[in-house]
């Protein structure tokens, strides 16, 4: 049960979750790596342009006479780069050169700046980073500059996320569908396993991936073995049932020679009981090799005849249903079922009321008795074979406890159902409902 609970999201769910996890990891990893490398590329590019601009500005400012320098610096200022010439020789910010990455990149691209006492400092301002810096002209005056980095590229915007997530979602759906297809043989297997022992087995086609194919093969073999085992046991029991009839016949003929009437009757009653046990056992085992064919039968008259047979044996049984009701039924099985219900009623009660009619398009046969009924908790149990209601009374109870099991099985085989309920006035009501054909 615990195992079942743990597996409740299903194999398909699990596989889909694995797929989702894989996709998520892939998405995160690729995004991070891609972002990083693309940012590095952009910075490199940025540093080169800055280096070129600085080299040109330095050359132009150095060649310009001092009065024209501020105006020239203003002309050299672009959207991206701020260039100032202060004219002073005092050291501006930053006071010392940081040997940071930006510095190295600029120097790498323009080694001629090495002798210009270049110093840079990156200051993060909000979402933008600004690069401040200064360098010395050939006359030792300082040129200051400021570059603002372009807006951080590769910011994960919603449309970008969607663009990456969409293929992932499609992949997930395709993956789930393929998993479903792959798992189909397993579902078939579960259904077939569920049917074992209920109806004739079903040999599954060996399809699907190798492992599943092996599983189905093993399952089919197991099913075959179980079927053989059941058949062998059933045949053995049926053979015993048949073989018992010959000694029973001998016993019956011998019993007739007993002179003392009381003893003879006791013998004959025992033989009758044994015979009915053998009969019910054979009926339960499905003693008939080939199933009976449905025959058009007057079911109402059949139920009445079962009642009449019981009445002829001295029982208090009445038929109160429809006079006539013709339907296609397996007559021998159905008559046995009705007889079992009537016998049951007479065994636990003193009288049996039987009826047959059509209700909601179903054939309904009911049997009511005036016995003690069945405790609600045991309603299901009494339908199982070899169940007898009251252990204290089982000594007086005939049969093997197969009566209701036989009826219930017949009902299931016909697509109908046997239901039991206690009557308000006391007693049990058994309802046998069969599809009307």
């Amino acid at each position, binding site marked *: 049960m615990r195992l079942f609970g743990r597996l409740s999201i299903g194999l398909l769910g699990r596989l889909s979750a694995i797929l989702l996890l894989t996709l998520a990891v892939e998405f995160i990893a690729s995004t991070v790596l891609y972002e990083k490398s693309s940012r590095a590329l952009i910075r490199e590019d940025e540093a080169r342009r800055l280096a070129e601009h600085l080299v040109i500005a330095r050359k132009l400012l150095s060649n310009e006479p001092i009065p024209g320098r501020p105006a020239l610096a203003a002309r050299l200022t672009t959207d991206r780069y701020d260039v100032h010439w202060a004219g002073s020789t005092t050291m501006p910010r930053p006071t010392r050169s940081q040997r940071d990455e930006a510095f190295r990149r600029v120097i790498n691209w323009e080694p001629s700046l090495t002798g210009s006492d270049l110093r840079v400092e990156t200051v993060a301002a909000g979402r933008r980073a600004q690069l401040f810096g200064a360098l010395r002209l050939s006359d030792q005056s300082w040129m200051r500059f400021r570059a603002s980095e372009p807006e951080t590229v590769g910011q994960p915007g919603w449309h970008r996320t969607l663009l990456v997530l969409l293929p992932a979602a499609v992949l997930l759906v395709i993956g789930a569908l393929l998993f479903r297809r792959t798992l189909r043989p397993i579902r078939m297997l579960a259904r077939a396993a569920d049917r074992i022992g209920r109806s004739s087995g079903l040999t599954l086609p060996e399809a699907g991936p190798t492992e599943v194919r092996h599983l189905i093969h093993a399952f089919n073999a197991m099913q075959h073995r179980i079927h053989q085992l059941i058949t062998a046991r059933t045949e053995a029991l049926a053979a015993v049932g*048949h*073989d018992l*009839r*010959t000694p*029973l*016949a*001998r*016993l*019956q*003929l*011998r019993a*007739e020679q007993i002179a003392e009437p009381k003893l003879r009757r006791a013998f*004959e009653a025992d*033989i009758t009981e044994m*015979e009915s046990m053998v*009969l019910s056992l*054979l009926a339960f085992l499905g*003693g*008939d*090799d*080939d199933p*009976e064919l449905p*025959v*058009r*039968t*007057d079911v109402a*008259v*059949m139920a*009445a*005849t079962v009642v*009449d*047979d019981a*009445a*002829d044996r001295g029982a208090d049984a009445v038929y109160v249903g429809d*006079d*006539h009701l*013709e339907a296609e039924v397996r*007559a*021998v099985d159905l*008559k046995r079922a009705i007889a079992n219900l009537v016998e049951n009623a007479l065994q636990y009660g003193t009288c049996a009321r039987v009826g047959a009619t059509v209700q909601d398009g179903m054939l309904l046969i009911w049997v009511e008795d005036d016995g003690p009924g069945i405790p609600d908790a045991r309603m299901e149990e009494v339908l199982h074979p070899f169940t007898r209601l009251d252990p204290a009374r089982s000594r007086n109870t005939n049969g093997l406890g197969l009566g209701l099991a036989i009826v219930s099985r017949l009902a299931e085989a016909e697509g109908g159902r046997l239901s039991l309920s206690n009557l308000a006035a006391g007693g049990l009501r058994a309802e046998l409902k069969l599809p009307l054909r």
Partner: protein
Amino acid sequence: MTSPVIVLVEDDPALRSLTTRALQENGYLVRPCATAPEMWSAMEAGPVDLLLLDIMLPGTSGIDLCRAVRRESDVPIIFISAKGSETDRVVGLELGADDYLAKPFGTRELTARIRAVLRRGGLEDRRAHRDKGLAEFDGFTVSLPRRELTSPSGGTIDLTGAEFDLLAALIDNAQRVIARERLIELSRTRMGDSSDRSVDVLISRLRRKLSRDGKEAPIITVRGVGYMLNATVTRR
């Protein structure tokens, strides 16, 4: 009147001798056999009135044997089976057996069946009358060997043994009044004393089972005398 001769084929020695004795005590001459070859020589030993055949014999199955006997002779056959399944009964009757008896059986049941089959006469008689044992009246069909009644709409109508015997007696005497005492006697011969129901109860049940859509069954009460089947019976 000479005693009827019965050939009994039964492989179980004890059951064979018990059955033989039971039949002898009831006035039959019995030739017991254990196997098919013994049966063939017993059949040749003299005229035979009835064959009592166990369906599960070693060597040959009773069904094959029944078929073989039917090719040679029209002697009435009663099957005895340890299977007691409906298929056996139908197969046996279709192969031309006259009746079917499931083990275990008592002497009373056995002799009642034998008497009934002997009374119906051998196949020769029935063939002479081109009789399949089918009787039709008012749309109903009665198969005497299969003990089946079919309604005008084709549905099987299930009757108790006593009810069927009563119906058979009424058919045999169609459109003639049968005295109650005679009916009681007839139904008792076959059923032994298992049915103590009065004939009146059986008649009322038959009437209900033979009624059709408000149309009453063609069984008439003749006050103070007995009953009559008021319908033309056609035999086939």
